[in-house]
Structure formats: C-alpha cells, structure tokens
C-alpha cells in the first residue's frame, strides 16, 4: 500500500469522525484509532480530534505516523445500531473467540453483532438493518448505556 493511499485513508477517517478504523489487505493490516478529548465529544460539532495511527501487522513498507487534518465533519449517512440495554459490551462470544463482526463485515437483520452483559446474562444483540459495519464506537469489555451507539453501519 502506498503512503499516499494511507494518507488518504487517514484523511477520510478523520473527516468522517470515526473513532476506530481497521483495514486488512492480504498480509497488511492498518488500524487507526482517534481519541477525542471530552470537550470535543460534548460539543455538538467536534472541532479537533487527535488521530493516532498504528500499523499492526507485517508490511514491507514503512508507515510513518501522520498528523490528521484538524477539521472533522459530523457524519450523517451512517445508521447507528444502539445498545438496547445498559451493561457491558463484548465483541466476541468468549475472550478467545473471534469477534462477531469487524469493520467491513456485511450484516443483515438477525446477524448477531455483539453481546451486552446485564446481571450476568449474556444478551446477544442482533442487527436490525442490512449493511456494512464501518464503525465500532465502543471498545470490547466497556460499559454501555441504554441507547448508546455501538456500531455505525453503511446501509446497503
């Protein structure tokens, strides 16, 4: 993958206001995660985001850490799957298992996308829409509120 392409991806990622982005292509894996400071999250129009990039897996090319442009536009076109209950968010059925879905996964109504644990009960959360997961807003094993966005879905 060319440096230019990575740059473009980072620009796109920060433009869309993603908090996490993962891309896998053959043996190359790129993971970008953005952390907003609290004020930024509270503001209705985020103005600045700190974007970190890390190249996780084996790539023959060296990838420098890049600064993202400061302007982030609020995303509009993504469908958000929200948590139907308060609890703890799990991306996989067990700590050692693969996640139910990843960025890029195609989902449809009924696809199990995650687990929210409430009172020691593992509640499988199913998708209510057909599309592609483009964003995962919550980290594995983190608490979620009722109505908190979990996944951003590009509706097909």
């Amino acid at each position, binding site marked *: 993958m060319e440096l230019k392409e990575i740059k473009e991806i980072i620009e796109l990622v920060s433009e869309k206001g993603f908090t996490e982005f993962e891309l896998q292509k053959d043996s190359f894996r790129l993971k970008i995660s953005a952390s907003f400071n609290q004020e930024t999250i509270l503001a209705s129009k985020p103005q600045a985001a700190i974007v970190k990039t890390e190249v996780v897996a084996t790539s023959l090319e060296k990838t420098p850490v890049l600064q993202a442009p400061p302007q982030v536009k609020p995303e509009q076109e993504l469908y958000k799957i929200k948590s139907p209950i*308060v609890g*703890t968010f799990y991306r996989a059925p067990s700590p050692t298992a693969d996640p139910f879905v990843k960025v890029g996964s195609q989902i449809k109504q009924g696809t199990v996308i995650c687990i929210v644990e409430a009172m020691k009960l593992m509640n499988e959360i199913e998708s209510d829409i057909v599309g592609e997961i483009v964003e995962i807003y919550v980290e594995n094993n983190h*608490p979620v509120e009722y109505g908190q966005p979990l996944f951003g879905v590009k509706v097909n």
Partner: protein
Amino acid sequence: MFKKILIANRGEIACRVIWACRELGIETVAIYSEADSDSLHVRFADDAVCIGPPPSGQSYLHIPAVISAAEIKNVDAIHPGYGFLAENAHFAEVCEACNIKFIGPTPQAIRTMGDKAQAKKAMKDAGLPLLPGSDGIVETVEEAITIAANIGYPVIVKASAGGGGRGMRIVRNASELTSAYQTARHEAGAAFNDPSVYIEKYLENPRHIEFQILGDTQGNVVHLGERECSIQRRHQKLIEEAPSVLLTPEIREKVGTLVAKACQAIGYVSAGTIELLFDNDCNFYFMEMNTRIQVEHPVTEMITGVDLVQAQIRIAAGEPLGFSQEDVRFNGHSIECRINAEHPEKFTPSPGLITAFNVPGGPGVRIDTAAYPGYTVPPNYDSMVGKLIVHAATRQMAIARMKRALDVMIVEGIKTTIPLHRRIMDSPDFISGNLSTRFMETFLAQQKAGQG
C-alpha cells in the same frame, strides 16, 4: 462507609439523596430514562447512566437495568428513594444477591409490611391497636356479614394488596354489603391480581397521623414524632405538618414509645413510618407501615434537626444511630406543600415546559425540587415538581411564612397547585387545625359554593 451509591430514582428525591451523599463524602451515580436526560439529578450526580426508554417499566422499575447500571459503575449501595423500587422486596433481595447494599430495611420486613393483612398481624402482635375488623382475609359473603354486624356499621371493605383507593368500598348498612364485597373483590383481582379483601371499622372523620421511626442494626429504635397528613385528595397527600395540633406532648410520648417498641419487636432497621388513624378523642389505630423514606420527611427533619436520608445511609453502612430517644427534641412547627404540575381546581396533570421559575428564600424556607427554568416536566412520571417547606417557632408563624413563600414562588408555563395551597392557608378550618381526611372534600365543596 460506602464509597459510591447509585440512586435508583429521579426528580427531587434523587437530588435529595445526592445532597446527603455529598455531605457524607460519598460519590453518586444517577440513573435516568431517555425522558430525563435534562434532569438535575443527572447533572448533579458524579456519574450518570441512561438505563432505558421513558416508560418506568422499562427504566426506573426495570430491575435488570438498574442492577446492571450498578454493576458497570461498581457501586457499594443503592438508595431507592420513594416509589418505584423502594418497597419491592424482590429488588432488595436481588441487591443482596449481587453484593450491593440496599439502603432500607430487610427484604423480609418490606414483604411483611407490603401485605396489609400480614402487616396488621405483625403490628398487633407487636402491641399496636388495630381498627376493629376481620382477622385477616374475608373468604365469603356470609363471613363478611357476620363480621360487619359484630364491629358495627359503617365498615370499609379493602383489598389486601391494595392502595390508591382501588378495591375499597365504604358500607353504611347491611343491605349494601353483599354488592360492595363482591365489587371490591372484583376490583382487587383486576388491579392487583389478588382478590383478597378484609373488613374493618370505618371512621367518619379520622386524622391521618404518622410516626417517623429510625432503627439501626444494633437494635436501637427511636421515634422522631409525628406528621399530620390529613390533607389528602384521593389518598394523595397535599400538605403535611409536624407536629400535629391534636397531640399533646404526653400523647406523643405514649404513642411514640409504643410504635418504637413495636418496630424494635419486629427487628426493624432503617427509616420507617407507622401510619395511624386518630379520632378526635385520640384513640388511634395502626393502618400500615411504609418501609421507605417518605415524600414528607422534611417536616420531621425541620423540627428534629435529624437528617433522615443521611441516617438511612449510615444505618445501612452498619453504623449505630448515635443518639437515643432522650436526645430527640422537637423545635417549632413545620409545614410542607407539595407543588404538583396539576390544574389547581381540576387536578388534571399539566406537564410541559417551565418558562419561569422563582423559588422563595429567606429565614425558615426550604425547597426540595429538581425543576428549573427551561425544564420540561415529562408526562411519564408523577406530577410533583417540588416541595415547599417552612419552619417557624409556632404553627401560626409557620402559616404566615408559608403564605409569604407561596406568594413569591413562581412557576410559569405549566399549571401548579400553588394557588390551591395559598387558598388552603387562608381556610378557617386549616388555620384552626380542624383537620381530617375529609378536609379536601369539604374545602373543595366550600370553594365551589363560594364561587357559585
């Protein structure tokens, strides 16, 4: 002492618990439904979790959501406030099973007192007088007729699982009894899924007077005197005061000692209220026990100086009361008016946007509220938007203080009961302390006649 408490409630009582925790140095977690994201309890708690959509059944009453919030926030204890899950024995048990301290009495005490027939039996055994009536549930019409003849008319048929006036029938003579018995059973079955009813003597003009008690885990129980709560409409209290003009210090001591002993006998822990009916000769009868902090607790706090919510928390943490009955002093007189988002004459609910909000201040005035200018009273919950409480040296001075406070308490955008309270403060019956649970009925009839 606890490090972090989750408050399983909303509105003014959630704020009241937050204030108590702040003063005790305890962190707070608020829970809220989607209808309450702009509420003050969410803003003022150290942390807050949205637990569900607006209907209480899916949020404030939904035990898995409440417990799950407590678990993700890692709290040591839950304060249930009043209403919602405050008197739900199952909830208290779930808290216990999850190693979260329920700030209140034991599940067993909640369960016993939640069942009117069981509560009466327990309190009778503990030494409190009961209204003459059936010994528990009345199974047949024939039995009802015999019992009613024995205790003398009028009698009242009440649902064992009841409340709020449902499954309740007043019977003035034998000819009305059969149909009243059957209707009450039918209503009780429909409303509470339990058709059990009992029968007792009906008092024509009783006063509703209740005693506040506090019990700790070491077995100490004190009473903090009474609250006069006779001003009610459809079993909903509107104005409460402490002390009651009916009770002399001797009667207060006699009844207070009796209720404290009864609570000690059942091993009661935490704050509780013994509701009694008084006739004008000071005969009194046990009605029910409330195993929670009550809406009207501030009038007791004002005249005793005891912070009841902090006491609940300290007791739940295992601390001793720290004072005895001899230390309890009653100072002056306190009155509370419940400010409801209701039409002051028609009593229809009036939710909506509060456009202007001014609260009175000055000496001896206390406001417990979660409302503010720009707050929208949601239609999903009860209509109380605040409590105006005054304290003064005498009852007369307290009434004068309440009047001047009501005059500058401004709530615009919604209808409230403020004008109603202002008129009650001018009522000769109220001023003279001539109170009974029929007060509002008479007062509203007089107002209507006056206008016509």
